[in-house]
């Protein structure tokens, strides 16, 4: 079972990653690095919500793969559209 401490750490991570993604837009001048890093952050945040908030880390693997696949594939496709 996900503990209260893990949930709060995950929330802090989500907040920090959000701020980093906003900051990245002002710091990174290379478009490829900027888009890739922002969308990678989306994946990490999605993984945190899936595993910790939704508690799918302790669910049957198929459901975890489905949700994790979503937060990996959708940012991946968006990244490909912007960069190709």
């Amino acid at each position, binding site marked *: 079972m*996900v503990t209260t401490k893990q949930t709060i750490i995950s929330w802090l991570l989500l907040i920090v990653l959000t701020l980093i993604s906003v900051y990245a837009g002002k710091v990174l001048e290379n478009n490829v690095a900027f888009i890739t890093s922002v969308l990678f952050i989306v994946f990490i945040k999605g993984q945190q919500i899936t595993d910790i*908030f939704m508690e799918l880390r302790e669910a049957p693997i198929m459901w975890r793969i489905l949700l994790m696949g979503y937060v990996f594939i959708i940012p991946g496709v968006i990244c490909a559209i912007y960069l190709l």
Partner: protein
Amino acid sequence: MSLESTLMSNTVTSLTMTQFVEPDLIDNAKNKRLPGDLAMWFFILAELTVFAVFFIGFAVAEQLNSEMFIAGKEKLHPVAGLVNTIALITSSLFVALSVRAIHLGNINKSIYLLIISQCVACIYLVVKVWEYQTLFSVGIDIETNTFFTLYFLITFFHFMHVLLGMVILVFIGVNARKGFYKEDVAGFESGACYWHMVDMLWIILFPLIYII
């Protein structure tokens, strides 16, 4: 104690430990449980699919009209988007803590945490309405151009999901107060997972519209 009896004793201890450990390991494997109702998860997958089409459509449209989208994004308020992201993430935190409380049988704490999550979610509603009003006040609406058509379509669709999520949270809060989740918390978990999905969608939506 002789060597023979020591070995016998170790074997017995080892067997006893095996008897205690193995069923536990088996239980852990079997204990993998999907939180909430299966029907809610199919609903969540359907919602995610609809939004996936919007996200990809937005990205393709941006590639086809990059100048229009850059100009459109400059008229948005990134701070408003950031505040909304923090509001939804924080609201999700309180919902997750509420689920934890109900698992531990603390129904009152669970209800209080749900109420806090609703209050934080209201920040999102207020900021979003303010954003829409600000755009309307300078003559920008859904018919201005392709960017704003997609902007209003996607963000308003998400706004409606936030409202639906809040209604669901009120519903499970009322049911918790009536004592419906003393034994089976699946309904409560379903509502919470729907709320986390709304949060997850915004986490993709925010960089797509405001940052990139």
